[in-house]
Structures are given as structure tokens and as C-alpha cells.
């Protein structure tokens, strides 16, 4: 069973994602800000991280940057799941920190997100 870490500060959205992915057969771990997310990531070493950007304490871009400094974190699969549009600074950071996808929550159905998650996990599995 694959393990997913979902980091999002909106409880309603987090709830929907947890429900969907649990039902889809994933083990789901959550965190409500970047700092807690970082801790959880190192502790539980999920197969994939769904990462929001706008969060208190530590935002998603910073969290991703910090994660990439770690040896394991460098190779962790991350899908950014946010409602915030990219800007130049973010784009630049995305080029360096390399998440697998940048998805806009409002424009993506749960099914689509699920598909993308499975796609990333499968490609990861292939390289192993």
C-alpha cells in the first residue's frame, strides 16, 4: 500500500483529499503547515507528497526547498496542489526544486489528481 503525505492548511479540502485517497487504497498522513509537513516527511518517508503552497508558519515552496536539501528528500516525489497561480519567482524555484506536477485545485477533479498520483508512482516504480 502506497503512503501519501498531504500537506494543506484548509481542513475542508484536506478532508476531501483524505477521504478520496483512503478510499482509493492509500495510506494517508496529513500536516497542516510546511513546518509540520517537513517533520512528517522525514519521519514517515511517504511515497508521494501532495503539497499546498499558501500555508502559515512555512509555505509550500519553502518546505519543498528545505526537503530537497536532504538526501532522501532530494528524490521524494512531490505534486504541488494549490489554488495559487505561478509567478516568476515560483517558476524559477520550480525549475530548481522540480516537483512532478503543478496542479490548480479548482481546475482539477479528484479523479484527475488521483490519475496523476498514480502516474507518478508508476514511473517511480519503473525506475526502481
Amino acid at each position, binding site marked *: 500500500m502506497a503512503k501519501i503525505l498531504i500537506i494543506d492548511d484548509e481542513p475542508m479540502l484536506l478532508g476531501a483529499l483524505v*477521504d478520496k485517497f483512503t478510499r482509493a487504497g492509500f495510506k494517508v498522513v496529513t500536516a497542516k503547515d510546511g513546518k509540520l509537513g517537513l517533520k512528517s516527511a522525514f519521519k514517515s518517508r511517504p511515497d508521494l507528497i501532495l503539497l499546498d503552497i499558501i500555508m502559515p508558519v512555512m509555505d509550500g515552496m519553502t518546505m519543498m526547498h528545505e526537503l530537497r536539501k536532504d538526501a532522501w528528500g532530494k528524490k521524494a516525489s512531490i505534486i504541488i496542489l494549490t489554488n495559487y*497561480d505561478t509567478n*516568476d519567482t515560483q517558476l524559477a524555484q520550480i525549475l530548481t526544486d522540480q516537483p512532478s506536477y503543478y496542479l490548480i*485545485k479548482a481546475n482539477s477533479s479528484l479523479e484527475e489528481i488521483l490519475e496523476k498520483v498514480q502516474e507518478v508512482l508508476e514511473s517511480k516504480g519503473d525506475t526502481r
Partner: protein
Amino acid sequence: MTFIYNHVSTKYSVNNFVVYRPTMSQNEPIDANNKEQLIASELRYRRLFETAQDGVLLVDFNTGMILDVNPFLVNLLGYSKDDFLEKHLWEVGVFKDIAASKDHFFTLHKEGYVRFEDLPLETKTGRKINVEFVSNAYDVGNIKVIQCNIRDITDRKKVEQLAIDKVNEIKTRDEAILNSIGDAVFACDQNGDLFLFNRMAEEMTGISLKEVIGCHYSQAVTFIRESDGKPCNDFVAEAINDNKITKMTNHILLVRKDGRKIPIADSAAPIKNVKDEIVGCVVVFHDVTKERQIDKAKTEFVSLASHQLRTPLSTINWYVEMLLSLDVGRLTPKQRQYSREVYHASQRMVSLVNALLNVSRLELGTFAVEPELVDITKIAKSCLKDLKPQILKKKLIVSERYDGGISLVKVDPKLLAIIFQNFLSNSVKYTKSGGKIGLTINKEKDNVLIEVSDTGIAIPVSQQKDVFGKLFRADNARKVDPDGSGLGLYIVKEIINYVGGKVWFESSERKGTTFHVSLPLSGMLKETGGKELV
């Protein structure tokens, strides 16, 4: 009126008046023996002397004694004739500066001619006047005479001074205006040499007027492009050569004397004289640092606002999605119907938020145009493919025609996709079942021509002029699709304008609608903005 006296003059005594009469000019010889003729001529000259509206003074060359003075001069100076006659020139109070008068007298002796363009005199009553004073010395038989012609130029001088004062007043006022303007202003002649550099220009550039006046403008002000730091002064030459008002393109920096760079916005206009010839160029510019900051704040605000709007929408979408996919149990038909309505409405809101985001980006001019070499046909075909389900459902007949001559064009694929998507989806939406849709891509001179036609419900003639307006929806369109945002065509038009293209259409109930887009083959101009359109 003055006479030009020729060489010889004759002394006559007529009626006890002693007069000097100049000889006639060469053309009119007088028979000295014809006394009648002589007397007649004499009277003529005497009359002239007496009635002249300039002063005439006759002085003995050797003694400096005044021999005769005409009435005009007597009146002008307020003395009597006796005050003059048999006196030395410098004894008459009017030529106050005795030493100078004597000097001039001696100059006359030497040169035979003295002229004062503007001689200040004082009349007997103390009134100050200005005169033009010309003295000539010449021979009258064996006597040498000085003739002084005096013209009162007091009034003329007054008028001249008034004019000078007025000009200075206007000049001072104009300078005050220029120096009070909040914008930097400089002007150059047709060679580009500066003749105007106002206070704001001095402040903004850190260079003083003294340093730059007369220099070529390129030496005085340095403008560079923000993107690559290359110098950018062509707008001035362009204004002069092309006789039009030019604006510097966005993202220009002014490099101050101290090296600091300031973002500016400006315009250059040709200066024309009364004959409508171009005699120079005037440039106005101002610091846009603050505007840029505001723009940045606006962009960030829009992004943040859309984020806040999207969050509850995502919530609705996801929970309803799970309801509809029966994740949490079966639904009665009514429950399913209601859930669909909710989902539908929520999707509509999401579209609207995306469209609003694009609109604000377009209006702020902050979106990026990233041209690449693209196969336009490919993008068109891909958009059609996305619409396949609806096309099949409505049994629409699609005909495509692609001019083989067009291979790759430099365009931003995302923006091009938005253009195709919009026209094609509209055609599909507004054409009844069994109708026809046509897509043509052509090359015409330096442009790519795209045509999207349909046999649909057309745009009512009375509403055709509004169709590109923000949030506008034609009445018949509203009936077919109440959910449309009314922003699609607005966005498409803004994009097309932004990249230097044109868009137009024909629409009639009988034939349907055809939209035309013309894009320059030279490709879209690359613009570095902040964001991409969604």
C-alpha cells in the same frame, strides 16, 4: 524726410532769407542765369525745409556756428529760433554734453560724417527724447557746411521697449511653466542638439542644464532597455524622421549621472514651425517606480483574491464529485440531479474566476508572451480534438483547410490555443445539430490568416458592435448557453491586439458567422510579463 545733398550748394538771398540751396541732381540742370527758375526752385526747397517732419540743422563747418534750423527742430526741442542761430552747437543747451559735442564736431571735421542711431536729448522743458542724428559735411561753393538731420525716434523706442518687455515677460512665464512641470522635459533641434532641459530633467538625470545645453541629446540622457541593458534612444530620431509621436516601449530605464537606474515612461513628439516643417523634437518623461510598485501590488492582489475565491469552489467541486461518483452511497435520482446542479454551478464559477484572472492580467499588461516556433495547424487540430465529443453529439460537419505554405510560425502556443479554443467552441456551441463548421489557415503576404466559420445562430446586427465587450453576451447566445461568462471574445481580442494582430467577423442569420484573425508572420513580440494566462 532728408535730402541727400550733392557736392555743391549755392548761397542765395531771397526776401532776406539766407538759404543754402543744394544744386539739383545731375538730371536736372538749372540754368543759373534763369532767375525765375532759380527763384521757383528756391521756394520749393525752402518749403521743404520749413515743412519737413524731421529736424534739419545747418552749421558752419569751420566755426561751428549754427546757420539755420528748421521749425520742426525748434518745436521738438522747445527752444526758439534765436536760441540756435549764431550759436555754437555746443552752446545750445540741448547738446548738454559739451565735451562730447566738441568731440563729435572734430570727428565730423575728420570723417565728414557722424551718425548716432540713438542719441538721448533733453528738451528745454526737461523732457527726455531719443533721436536719430546724422551729420554730413559738404561744400557749398567755397564754404563748408555741416547739415544735421534729426529724427525723433522717442515713440518708436517706446514701442520697441514695450515689445522687448513683452517678449521677456512671456519668456519668463514660459520658463516658469517649464520648470514647474512635474515631468522632465527636454527639447532638441533637428540635429538632436539640446536647447531645452527643464528643472525636473536636471533632477531626474542628475545633470545640470549648463552641462548639456547645446550637446547632442544622446550625450546628455542615457536610456537603456531593462531586459538587456542596451541603449535605447531611437524614439527621438523616429519622432523627427517619421513625423509622429512615439512612445518609448515599456521597461526603459534612465541611467542617472551617479549610475542609479530609474524606470521611466515617456513620449517624444516632433516640433513644427509655422510652415509645418519639423524643426526639432520634444521629449517628456517621468519616473514610474511608484506605478510599477502599484502594478506589482495589483497583480499580487489579483492572484491572492483568486486563490481565496478558488478555495471554497474546490471544496464544493470535490465533495460533490465524490457524491456523484457514489463514493459515499447511492443517490436517488433527485439527489443525483441536485448534486449535478451544484457541480455545474460550481464549475461555472471556476471558469469565471479563471476568465477574470486572465482579464486582469491582460489589462495590467502583465502577462507573458513566450513565442516559440510552432506548427499552428497542430494547435488548431488539437483544439478541434478536444471538442470532438460535442461535435459528434451534435452531428456537426467540420471541414478543415490548411495552406501547406505555412510551416512554423513564431507564436506563443498557449495564447494561440486560447484563440482557437474560443472561436471553435463558440461555433460548436452556437450551431444547431447537423450544421457546418469550417476552419481555414492561410498565408496572405506577411500574415497568417485564420478563419473559423459556422452556420450557427449568428450575432444580431444590433449587437455586433458590442460582441468583443467585457462580459457582453448577445441575447440569442444567452438563450442557448446561459452559463457563458461573456469574457471569451474580450480576452481573445486583447490577446490578438497585444501581439500585433487583427480580428474581425461577418455574421448574418442566413449564412452564420465567420471570424477572421490575422497574425503577423514575423511572429509575436516577446513580452516579459509576470504570469501566464490560465
